[in-house]
């Protein structure tokens, strides 16, 4: 039986009881019809219905949540973090834009869940004191789920867009955090390990080939895309990958249109981190959508995106969602935490 995604359904249809199981998901609660339903419904229950305690039945006790500010270990940390965010943004809505999932075998599923949130900042947040402002921001949560529990999560949120909307300066927020980091001993071990992991991948041969068709082989396309366009700096191949009318959304609330601006993004990324390498952590594809989780390691040696070079080594954890039509990318959303990135440039994390 086909598993409906977000597309084509209004919220009332999405949250209405879905009836009998549409997918064999052993160990998941009877209220969940399939993996997409599990993700959308438990998000609604925990965040919008404020049943934060349900995290105990939906997260493994030994959960690891990977973020650009470092990993958080244990379910208690997830409950505390959720409570803090809901205190700062009590009316936060979490609109599911896509749930791009994959079957990982042995009853495990990976869900890449893109969320548009609108929320009023009524309490102190990670970014500063309450502002009373109503903001909209994007989050992507990659969750590895098994038997009703999220056992590992990779969470990326557009914190710089949040700061800009709230009226805070992203660099100033980053600097404040970095000062605390420096007082606690400088670069964290987790970041050194992550950067070594990215840089340890062997270099590939020059990609003198056309890109695979993303509709036919999304995994091969994703790997070839980042290998050619980023790791081998063939920025012009954006014209092979994207529709000339493609829309691109990125960190800091950036919105680009068409080949020239999108090629400009990749040029500026390498113009900021001249020795950058990217490696792909995971690819999932459903219907016309592809989710790619990737990491970047490099040196902040250029001023294209983040001001004058700091010379600091940097690490990015990002998730990209593509929508494909006519074998081309027509929509992209890429999310990573630019405040955590600038915190690294200020000597933190």
């Amino acid at each position, binding site marked *: 039986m086909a598993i409906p995604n977000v597309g084509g359904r209004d919220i009332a249809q999405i949250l209405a009881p879905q009836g009998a199981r549409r997918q064999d998901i052993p160990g998941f609660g009877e209220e969940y019809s399939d993996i997409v339903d599990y993700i959308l419904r438990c998000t609604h229950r925990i965040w919008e219905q404020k049943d934060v305690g349900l995290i105990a039945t939906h997260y493994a006790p030994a959960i690891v949540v990977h973020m650009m500010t470092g990993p958080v270990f244990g379910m208690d940390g997830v409950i505390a973090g959720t409570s803090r965010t809901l205190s700062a943004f009590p009316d936060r809505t979490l*609109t599911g834009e896509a749930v791009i999932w994959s079957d990982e075998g042995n009853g495990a599923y990976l869900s890449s869940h893109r969320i548009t949130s609108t929320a009023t900042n009524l309490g102190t947040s990670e970014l500063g004191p309450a502002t009373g402002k109503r903001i909209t921001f994007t989050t992507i949560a990659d969750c590895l789920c098994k038997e009703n529990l999220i056992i590992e999560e990779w969470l990326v949120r557009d914190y710089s867009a949040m700061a800009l909307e709230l009226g805070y300066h992203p660099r100033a927020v980053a600097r404040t955090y970095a000062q605390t980091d420096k007082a606690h001993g400088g670069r964290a071990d987790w970041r050194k390990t992550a950067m070594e992991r990215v840089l340890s991948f062997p270099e590939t041969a020059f990609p003198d080939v056309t890109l695979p068709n993303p509709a036919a082989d999304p995994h091969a396309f994703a790997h070839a895309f980042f290998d050619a366009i980023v790791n081998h700096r063939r920025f012009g191949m954006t014209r092979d990958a994207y529709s000339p009318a493609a829309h691109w959304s990125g960190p800091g609330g950036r919105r680009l*249109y068409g080949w*020239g601006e999108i090629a*400009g993004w990749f040029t500026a990324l390498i113009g900021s981190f001249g020795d950058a390498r990217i490696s792909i952590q995971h690819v999932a594809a459903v219907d016309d959508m592809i989710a790619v989780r990737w990491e970047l390691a490099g040196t902040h040696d250029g001023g294209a995106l983040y001001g*004058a070079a*700091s010379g600091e080594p940097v690490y990015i954890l990002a998730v990209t969602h593509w929508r494909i039509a006519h074998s081309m990318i027509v929509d992209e959303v890429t999310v990573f935490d*630019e405040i955590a990135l600038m915190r690294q*440039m200020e000597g933190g994390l």
Partner: protein
Amino acid sequence: MSNLGRLETALRRDRSLAVLDDSHVHRATREDSLGIIKGRDAITAAWVNEDASDITITADLTDIIAFKVKSWHGHRWVWREEGRILREVVIEDRCEAKTAQPAHPPLGELRSGEGQYAASDSALLPPSFPEAARDVANWLHQAWNGRTFNLYDRAWLPALIRQLPDATFYFEHAVVGEKQTAILWRVHGHHVGGPNPTGQRVRLIGSSVFTGDADETVIDHAAMAAQLERRTIEYAASC
């Protein structure tokens, strides 16, 4: 009148905003030349700010309507999902000042990879662009990007290009009706011409409905003025 025409009338004349609950999906977006708002709630909130007014639908091609309110013109383009509006693009040329939110510094070039080549004979069109609208797009490309002004003798075109000398027009979408063809396009250019150049990259959405050779073309002049004054987001360490 199409559903879209009836919706526009219900919203503007009757102010029956509850119709949005059925017409739009909850995650619908609305884009104009100054940005995007996300969610049916945000779209409803934007309608609350509109005063009641009479409206005349001047063109109705089901997924794009042209309308006149008081003394100004507007076009609304929609994309639907199972009958409900998922995305709308609105171009309104109203005689009232607007404010643009700060923007990141511009990225990339306007004519991707073309270098010193002159504008080609045919427009660069997305694969989804309707076959029946390609001749119109190619004609506009020659007139607008190729600067063949005698092919399209309208005062707004050279006036815009004098302000944005590298203005590049992109053809995004089209709808072909029985007697009319509507083209959704964008223009990006750098404000380095005219009396007080700011150097800003201007990014506007435009819309044209052709009936034969005659067209009703709308761009948001207030959005352009607002973009010339907008602040640039600065990430530099000195901030």
